C-alpha cells in the first residue's frame, strides 16, 4: 500500500468540493483519476500533496515526502534562471543533494535533447523545450510516487508522445503513477486502474478490465439486408438502425452469440462485428446514469 484515502471531505466555504472520497493505491501501478473539469481532481491531488487539508476523513501516506514528485496543472519555471540553475533549485527542493543532481542531470538533458542548452536561460528556450525541462524536474529525483495533474495539457503532439513514453518507462521501473485527466483516451492506454469522480463523488473505481466488464456493454455493428424490424427481438437495449446497417447494444452484453443466431435466421448478415466498450463509453455512461439517478 502506498496511499489510502478514507472518506475524505473538502469544502470551499459552502461548496462541497470532495465528498467522502476513498481510494487505495498499491505500489507499482498506474492510476488514472478521471472526471470532468471542476469535478474535484486537482483538489484531491492537492490534499494528497498536503497542500490542502481535508475537513473530514483521513489520508494515510506510506511514503516520505521526498519520494513523491508532483507536476501541477499550473506549472512554470523561472524565466531568468539557466537550465542548470533550474535543475539545481528544483532538485534541491525535492530533497536531492547538489552532487546527486549534477550526476543525474546530464543524462536527463541528453535524453531530452537539451544538453546544449544547459547554460541558457529558460526564457531563451522554446515552449516545447520548457515543457521537457518541466518534465525533467518532475522525474529527476526518481520518485517512488509520481502525481501528474493533467500532464498532457498544453503539450505539442511530439511532446505528448515523449511524455507518454517516459511515463511508461518510469512505470516499468516500478514507479507508482497517479494522473488526472479529462481526456479519457490517454488513461485508457496507460492505466491499470481508474477512479472516476463526478461533482466530488467517486462514481467508478477499479481495474480497467473489470470496469469495462462490469459497466461496459459490447457494441455490435451489423451490416444486413432484409427487414430491419427483425433486429428487435427483446434482447436489445438500444438500436440505431440505418436501413442496411445498425449499431446495437444488448441488455446482456455477453449474449451476442445468441443474438447473432436469432437474427441470422431472419436476415441476411454480411458483417457482424463485436467491439469491446471503450473507457470513454463507460465514463460517459457512468456520468449520465448518475445524472439520471439524480434527476429521479
Amino acid at each position, binding site marked *: 500500500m502506498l496511499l489510502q484515502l478514507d472518506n475524505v471531505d473538502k469544502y*470551499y*466555504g459552502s461548496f462541497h468540493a470532495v465528498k467522502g472520497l476513498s481510494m487505495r493505491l498499491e505500489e507499482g501501478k498506474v492510476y488514472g483519476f478521471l472526471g470532468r473539469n471542476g469535478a474535484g481532481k486537482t483538489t484531491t491531488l*492537492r490534499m494528497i*500533496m*498536503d*497542500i490542502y487539508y481535508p475537513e473530514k476523513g483521513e489520508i494515510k501516506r506510506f511514503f516520505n*515526502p*521526498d519520494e513523491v514528485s*508532483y*507536476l*501541477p496543472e*499550473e*506549472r*512554470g*519555471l*523561472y*524565466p*531568468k*534562471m539557466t537550465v542548470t540553475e533550474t535543475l539545481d*533549485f*528544483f532538485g*534541491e*527542493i*525535492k*530533497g536531492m543533494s547538489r552532487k546527486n543532481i549534477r550526476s543525474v542531470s546530464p543524462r536527463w538533458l541528453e535524453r531530452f535533447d537539451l544538453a546544449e542548452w544547459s547554460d541558457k536561460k529558460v526564457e531563451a528556450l522554446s515552449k516545447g523545450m520548457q515543457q521537457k525541462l518541466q518534465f525533467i*524536474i518532475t522525474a529527476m529525483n526518481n520518485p517512488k510516487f509520481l502525481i501528474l495533474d493533467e500532464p498532457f495539457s498544453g503539450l505539442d503532439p511530439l511532446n505528448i508522445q515523449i511524455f507518454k513514453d517516459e511515463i511508461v518507462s518510469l512505470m516499468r521501473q516500478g514507479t507508482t503513477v497517479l494522473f488526472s485527466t479529462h481526456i479519457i483516451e490517454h488513461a485508457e492506454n496507460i492505466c491499470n486502474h481508474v477512479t472516476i469522480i463526478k461533482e466530488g463523488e467517486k462514481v467508478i473505481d477499479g481495474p480497467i478490465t473489470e470496469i469495462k466488464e462490469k459497466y461496459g456493454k459490447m457494441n455490435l455493428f451489423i451490416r444486413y439486408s432484409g427487414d430491419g424490424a427483425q433486429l428487435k427481438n427483446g434482447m436489445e437495449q438500444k438500436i440505431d438502425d440505418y436501413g442496411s446497417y445498425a449499431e446495437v447494444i444488448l441488455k446482456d452484453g455477453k449474449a451476442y452469440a445468441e443474438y447473432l443466431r436469432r437474427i441470422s435466421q431472419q436476415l441476411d448478415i454480411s458483417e457482424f462485428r463485436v467491439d469491446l466498450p471503450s473507457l470513454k463509453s463507460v465514463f460517459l455512461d457512468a456520468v449520465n446514469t448518475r445524472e439520471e439517478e439524480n434527476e429521479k
Partner: protein
Amino acid sequence: MKNKWFIILKKEFWHLIKTKSFILGTILTPFFLMLIFAIPIYMQKKNAEKVRKYHYVDHSENIAGVLKEHLPSTMEMIPWNSDKEKAIAALRNKEIKNFIYLPEDIFESYNFEYYSETISDSQRISLIESVISRVIQEKKFEERGLSRGEINQLLLSAKARTFEVTRDEGPKKKSADVSFGIAYLLVFLIYMTVLSWAPQMLRSTIEDKSNRVAEVLVSHVKPSHIMGGKLSGTALAGVFQYLIWGLMAFLGITLLKQALPASRSVFDALAGNINPSLFIFFGLYFLMNFLLFALIFGIIGAMFSDMKDAQNAMTPAILICILPLLFFAPVSQDPTSAFSVGISLVPFLSSLMLMRIGISEVPSLQIGLSIGLLLLTIAIEVWLAGRIYRIGLLSYGKKPTWKELFSWIKNG
C-alpha cells in the same frame, strides 16, 4: 517535509544580487550621495577661494581703510573716486560690477548701501555688515576712552556649549547637531531600507505566481518556509548591500583622513558623539521594521496574481511606511512630550522611538513596551501571512473579495 527555507533563502539572495538594479544601485548610490554632498561643498569652497573685487565710494571718515584690514584677502576693496550717481552710471555701463556706498552718517545710522548687478552674494555682504558694525562699535568705545583690551572684552560674542544629562551619567559634552544628525540618519536608513527592500517580498511572491511556480514550490516546501526563506534572503541581500557600502565608506574615510589631515578632527568628533547602545537599538528596530513591512508586502503579493492589482493595494502600505517622516519635526523638537511618547509606541511608527532614543533619555518601560508591541504585531502578521500564503499562492485570476480573504484566514 524537511525544513527547506534555506534553499529558498539561497535562491532569493542570489537572484536578487544578480539583478542589474542591485549591481547598479550598490555601485551608484554611494557615488550619487557623495555627489549630492560634494558638489555644494566644492562649489562653496571654490566660490570662497575666488577673489572678488568690491568698489567703494567712501564719504565717511575712511571707514573703508579699516574695512580692508579686517576683510579676507579674497575680498579686494578698490576705491572709486566719484560720487554715488556716477558710480551708479558706471555700474549701468558695466564699467564696474558693484560698489559699496559708505555715507557720511554711517557712524550714526549704521547703514551703508550696496549696489550690484546681482545681489546674490549674501554671505560676503553679511561679512561686510558684521565688520562694519564691529569697526563702528570699536570706534565708539575708543571715543569713550576704553582700552583695546576692554573693547575686545566687551565685543565678545556668545557661544553655546551643549551637554546631555542622563539619569546614569553626569553632564557629558555633546553636540546637539551631531546627535540629532546621527539619530536622523539612522531613522532615515531604516525608512530607506524598508521602502527599497520590503516591496521585494511582493515582487518575489507575485513572480512565483505569475511564473506558475508557486504550486511546485508549495508541494515540496511549507508555505511558512517559503515565506521565511524569502524574508531572510531579501534581508540578507539588504545587509550585503549595507556591508558593501560600509566597506566603501570605511575606505573612503581612511583615504580622506590621509589626504586631508584636517578632516581627522571632524571624524573623531563624530565618533565621540556616538552612543554605542544607540547602534544596538538601531539593529533591533531595523530588523523589526523590516519584518513588519516585508510581511505586509508578502501578504499583498500572495493575495494578487497581477502586478497591477497588487500595486494598487501597495499604495496604502507605502503610505504607512513613510508616515513616520511626517512626525520627524514635532518629535525631534520635543521628544519627551506626551504626543511624542504616544506616537512612537505605535508599531508602524516605531522608527520615531529610535529617534527619541538617539536624542533624549527614554525610560526603559517605554522601550520595552514599544518592542513588545512590535513583536506582537509581527507575530499577528506571521500568523495571518501563514494562512493567506497557503491559499493565496494557489489562487489565480480575479482579486479576492474581503469575504474570500476572511475565509482564507479561517481555512488556511
